């Protein structure tokens, strides 16, 4: 094995390093400049300065880095320590599984866009303009999504047609888009560059249409479509220009067939077809929270209590002309019994409804009852304008809505005046939050973080280490307004174009690999993977290379070591520890994303710590096995520190909590075996907390 040692321009003075006949030591005066050739398949050890720097100069190697500069020279430890650190790294490298290059071939350069709202239209349009073939899959018979149901958009109150219609017109200019209406993605197989999607299409009923509208006139079935009445056969003026039958309401009486100038088939059939794609954009939008679950507000029970969308459509279409309106904010939001989160956009929706009713009927009295008004940025102007227009804002959370003498009464406290109020009204609008539409994410096995699927590429907790074929746009990952959705859609389009620019992508990201001779399909690991990369396929445990981020949590969870992380096999770390740790040492196993960086900072800031503190860099605190602690303790270690990211801040989402549970039970074990519970300590150490790291190791060294 090659061991490349850098003297860092004579700052590291290493002499007489001999690790036996199998280990070839190469000394470099300045490794960064000399940049020797290293075969990426060869196992090597590089000793020099911090891996944080060396890794950028020597990426994609099968390499263990030994930090001689920050961990020895700068903090004044004797250079003899280098021998132990290098020897331990060599022992590790001897047994680890080398990283196999992963090649993702981008075979298909077309994209499937799931959804038909503003985000989906924008992403399809942008991609089609750039020459990418698009299959747009929309569940309903018409484009437009949530926006097409609205009367207007906040803050100005412009009709949705100002935004949606030009957008659709622009999209229709592109010829390379196939549209699938009344269609859902039933099954998705394959991986980045080559997905196979099974589509399931329900029949539209209307086959050929002259747009005469006679069918609507004769249809006897009235349907309440979120506050607006329509027939079972209907039309939404977006796209396509063809009527559709709502088979959930249709009684198949046949009246429409009699008057139709085109062709109507009343049989609701389901057809399946398969399409392929190199990437998938999920723009499936959001769902409104079921506000009837907030029973104290009387939705469904009390006439006059309605949802924002119903109110908007009823007022806009002239069906409703209220005199006194109370808009209740956070109906079921920021509430442990309902949605624990803030849906971000409902404050503006509420303001928009207040403006809508005042625009139409200026004499209407409008009350807004809100715990908080979250009108960030320029939305504060919108809020102030409505105050000037005479909307009364009450700070509070209503306890209930009741009916008294033909009038609705909203009971609430007013936190400004400390009074209990009863506000009478004819109309109560419940501004509820939103829940994500996770159907597509579930099919792809994409995990939710809390309530939302945010753990991938172009979403909040994105991670760019691996190429991904799944992108999101708009409100699919979190409630978003039109403006934000459009920006997000363009980002998604850019990501797809960036992917399709390449024919193949090669990465050397370490992956978990499964030894099928050992795996008994016990499934302990599957739920612990933060990325949903593990699944059972044809009665075998499989790692999805596209999803695996190389955290190592599964390999430490596996009760038989059937799962192994390339380059970080648990046995490798065991060998390293057994070689490195001598009686009286303190071992620090530090997460590469946080605690390890604190040791670099300790060196620069001269926070000194004793020389018997020996540091090993690990992918995650969740990639440390209790057996590793046992190994160190068995070798006489005074203490074992596992340093990880703060709670909720783990690079791999949950690795630090896994580490916490292991540490807690291990402490009990060690206690019963005659050790102090504190011989092992899991500590949260931020990347700049050099001081904290040094204090802890000093304490452990006592």
């Amino acid at each position, binding site marked *: 094995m090659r061991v490349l040692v850098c003297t860092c321009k004579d700052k590291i003075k290493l002499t007489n390093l001999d690790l036996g006949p199998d280990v070839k030591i190469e000394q470099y005066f300045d490794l960064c400049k000399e940049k020797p050739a290293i075969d990426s398949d060869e196992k090597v050890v590089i000793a020099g300065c911090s891996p944080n720097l060396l890794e950028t100069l020597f990426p994609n190697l099968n390499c263990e880095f030994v930090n001689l500069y920050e961990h020895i020279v700068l903090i004044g430890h004797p250079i003899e320590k280098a021998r132990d650190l290098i020897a331990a790294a060599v022992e590790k490298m001897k047994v680890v599984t080398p990283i196999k290059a992963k090649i993702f071939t981008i075979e298909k350069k077309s994209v499937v866009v799931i959804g038909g709202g503003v985000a989906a239209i924008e992403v399809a349009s942008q991609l089609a303009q750039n020459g990418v073939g698009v299959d747009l899959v929309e569940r309903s018979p018409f484009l437009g999504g949530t926006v097409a149901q609205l009367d207007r958009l906040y803050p100005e109150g412009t009709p949705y047609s100002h935004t949606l219609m030009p957008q659709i017109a622009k999209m229709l200019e592109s010829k390379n888009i196939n549209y699938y209406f009344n269609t859902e993605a039933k099954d998705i197989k394959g991986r980045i560059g080559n997905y196979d999607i099974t589509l399931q299409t329900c029949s539209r009923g209307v086959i050929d249409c002259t747009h005469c509208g006679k069918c609507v006139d004769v249809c006897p079935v009235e349907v309440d479509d979120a506050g607006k009445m329509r027939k079972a056969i209907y039309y939404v003026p977006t796209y396509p220009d063809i009527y559709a039958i709502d088979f959930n309401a249709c009684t198949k009486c046949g009246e429409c067939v009699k008057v139709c100038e085109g062709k109507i088939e009343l049989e609701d059939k389901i057809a399946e077809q398969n399409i392929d794609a190199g990437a998938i954009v999920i723009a499936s939008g959001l769902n409104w929270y079921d506000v009837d679950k907030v029973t104290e507000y009387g939705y469904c029970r009390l006439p006059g209590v309605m949802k924002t969308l119903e109110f908007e459509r009823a007022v806009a279409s002239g069906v409703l002309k209220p005199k006194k309106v109370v808009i209740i904010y956070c109906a079921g939001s920021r509430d442990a019994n309902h949605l624990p989160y803030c849906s971000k956009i409902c404050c503006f929706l509420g303001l928009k409804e207040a403006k809508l009713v005042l625009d139409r009927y200026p004499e209407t009295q409008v009350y807004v009852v809100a715990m908080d008004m979250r009108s960030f940025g320029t939305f504060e102007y919108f809020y102030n304008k409505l105050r000037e227009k005479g909307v009364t804002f009450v700070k509070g959370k209503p306890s209930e809505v009741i009916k008294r003498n033909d009038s609705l009464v909203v009971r609430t406290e007013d936190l400004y005046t400390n009074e209990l109020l009863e506000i009478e009204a004819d109309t109560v609008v419940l501004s509820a939050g939103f829940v994500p539409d996770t159907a597509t994410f579930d099919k792809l096995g994409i995990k939710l973080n809390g309530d939302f699927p945010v753990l991938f590429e172009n979403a909040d907790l994105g991670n760019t280490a691996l190429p991904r074929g799944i992108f999101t746009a708009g409100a699919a990952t979190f409630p978003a307004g039109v403006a934000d959705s459009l920006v997000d859609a363009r980002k998604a389009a850019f990501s797809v174009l960036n992917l399709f620019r390449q024919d193949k992508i090669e990465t050397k990201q370490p992956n978990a690999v499964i030894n099928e001779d050992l795996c008994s399909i*016990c499934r302990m690991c*599957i*739920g612990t993977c933060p990325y949903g990369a593990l699944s059972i396929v044809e009665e075998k445990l499989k790692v999805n290379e596209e999803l695996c981020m190389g955290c190592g949590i599964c390999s430490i969870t596996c*009760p038989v*070591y059937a799962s192994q992380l390339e380059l970080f096999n648990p046995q490798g770390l065991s060998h390293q520890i057994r070689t490195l740790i001598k009686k009286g040492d303190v071992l620090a196993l530090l997460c590469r994303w946080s605690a390890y960086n604190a040791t670099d900072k300790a060196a620069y800031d001269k926070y000194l710590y004793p020389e018997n503190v020996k540091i090993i860099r690990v992918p995650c605190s969740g990639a440390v096995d209790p057996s590793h602690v046992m190994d160190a303790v068995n070798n006489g270690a005074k203490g074992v520190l596992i340093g990880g990211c703060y709670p909720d801040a783990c690079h791999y989402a949950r690795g630090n909590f*896994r580490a916490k549970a292991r540490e807690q*039970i291990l*402490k009990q074990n060690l206690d019963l075996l005659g050790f102090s519970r504190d011989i092992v300590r899991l500590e949260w150490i931020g990347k700049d907390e050099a001081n904290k790291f040094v204090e802890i190791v000093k304490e452990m060294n006592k």
Partner: protein
Amino acid sequence: MAKPLVAFYWCASCGGCEEAVVDLAEDILKVADAVEFRLWPVALDFKYADVEAMPDKSIAVSFINGAVRTEEQEHLAKLLRQKSQLVIAFGACAHLGGIPGLANVANKNEIFETAYKLTRSTANPKGVYPQTVTETEYGKLKLPEFFDTVKTLDQTVEVDYYLPGCAPPPDLIMQGVTAILEGKLPPKGSVLTVEKALCETCERNKSKPDKLMIKEVKRISEVIADPEKCFLAEGIICLGPATRGGCGERCINANMPCRGCFGPTKEVKDMGAKFLSSLASIIDVDDEKEIEKIAESVLDPIGLFYMYSLPSSILRRKQGV
């Protein structure tokens, strides 16, 4: 042709392994036909001196059960090793240390104190403890030295094969014996059962959800387990995922979770630490205080995770006593 000579010896054990041989039922006649016993203290009257007088390697195979905790057991293990071509660690105690190995949470003095003084049924007003040599009017009486630490057989002598289990099931014994007689043995050091963990063959594994996560840890004594469902899916600790299979799921079929008597699979050195890691990992709680509470609800972790394997674990025993 002369029949191969066989020894069957017990160290620190309960006698269950001897019982397992009797459980061979009519098959035992086949064994008796095929071999000739030269030592079997529980059944036949041979003297240690008879064995000592035999030439080295003259015994074809010695089956040794029980952990090693006294001078006499150590002596016999070494003697049989010297006289035998093959030594088989028979049963969980010889293989891993077994239940007697749990004594490694104490030392000799503590054990004597408990056994000869503190237990309520003991009356020992003079404080008499076992001594290795006692002078009497009839001469010196000797007892073997009682060690502080219980050892596995392979920590005492070289072991060729392991027959796992508490006790090894008859079918595995017959398979092992047949393989030896026919000379069809796997590589030295093998555990004579399957390589994969118990879940591979456990019927209940099929009922396990793909994403196995738990929010509380239950003890089998606290609940009535559903005989169709995976124990772990119900939060009941079962060592099946970490334990070699081949036992025939005897405990599972009696609606008891696996306790690990077949020992770890081949890559695992410390079965207790390994399963501890697995179990802790599936605790689906993202709150430090809550995690601490659940961890504390795992009672007697040594007895749970190391029920059969404390002497073969990395630390082997309690330190500093």
